[in-house]
């Protein structure tokens, strides 16, 4: 499958590209953009959600992170798929993985839902537009499931 490597590089549209998953989890009929990324030392997946104000992470992932790698910066309430969650806002680094080109390490604010004692987080991780992709240039090639991305200069 053709990958547009010529758009990758300094002063070009993107700095890297990665392969995304387009069908994910229980709703096989839905098409999504699921990206690989590092949170702390863990390689995980997250759904691009342009309606989400923050990135949202499964609390179990955050439990595995070193406390030194994040800072709690507040709290928030989010309506996620029709359910209201209270949660912490943490500031941490997320590395957007590139198959080709450059990985980007991004300092971002993450919403981490606080679950009840016996509650399980059965939703994916989300990459929000405003809280994460906001400072990235990106494009999607659905023919090859390729997600191109690059930083926007300040």
């Amino acid at each position: 499958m053709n990958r547009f490597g010529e758009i990758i590089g300094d002063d070009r549209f993107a700095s890297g590209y990665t392969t995304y998953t387009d069908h994910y989890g229980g709703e096989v009929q839905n098409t999504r953009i699921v990206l690989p990324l590092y949170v702390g030392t863990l390689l995980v997946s997250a759904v691009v959600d342009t309606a989400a104000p923050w990135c949202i992470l499964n609390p179990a992932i955050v439990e595995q992170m070193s406390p030194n790698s994040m800072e709690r910066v507040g709290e928030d309430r989010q309506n996620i798929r029709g359910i209201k969650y209270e949660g912490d806002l943490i500031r941490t680094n997320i590395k957007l993985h590139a198959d080709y080109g450059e990985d980007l390490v991004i300092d971002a604010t993450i919403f981490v839902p606080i679950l009840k004692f016996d509650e399980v987080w059965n939703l994916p991780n989300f990459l929000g537009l405003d809280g994460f992709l906001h400072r990235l240039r990106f494009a999607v090639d659905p023919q090859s499931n390729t997600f191109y991305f690059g930083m926007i200069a300040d």
Partner: protein
Amino acid sequence: MNIWDRQNVPFADYNYTQKRSSKPIPAKIYNGGTINAGEHLRPQTVMIVPSSTSTYSLDVEQTTEIIPNKIFGTLLVQALWATLEKGQFTAEAFVETVRLNAPMYGQDKLFQEAIEITRREEPNAITRRLVTVGVEAYPQSEVLMNYAKAFAPPRVIERQPARHNFSKTMRWLSAHSHEYVGQWIAVRDGELLDTAASLKALIAQLGTLADDETVMTTYIPTT
């Protein structure tokens, strides 16, 4: 400072509206119910409106007339917000009005009230602007500094040459993730390594493989 003395209001270039009321008046709370202004009624209430704002709404004036002092800040920003939503107030005027009135209504607390409303109602753009202006006005405010950290835009802090290719793993997820709904799975190079009911259990099962940065450990959601 006598805030009713225009000479002492540090924004001499701005018009302001002064309303007086000596008796309780039912007041509409935006986004809420109705209250009766009583013992906490403030007989004089001033709200400063940016001089550039020619279209501020009567809602604001009426509200300023009747609001008990201790909740005025909340209602002021609610009224402003309602006015903004009706298109009678620009976002910039909203932020500026909060800034101008903050010295009279709890300093940084008026910013906190405004931030709490905008963050619930709106994408982060207005909230970010409020935080920026609030921190400029009250740099000593710990609360506003925390807002500043939370609402700081994402920023790329490092670029690293790509070292791995996860295309096989991502394609495997497209083809097979629905078979593992509700489970944590570990996948490497397009091959399923293990599954577990929790991330903690999965990491324990993986042993030293858990430290392999090419192993994806992820939860397969039901929706």
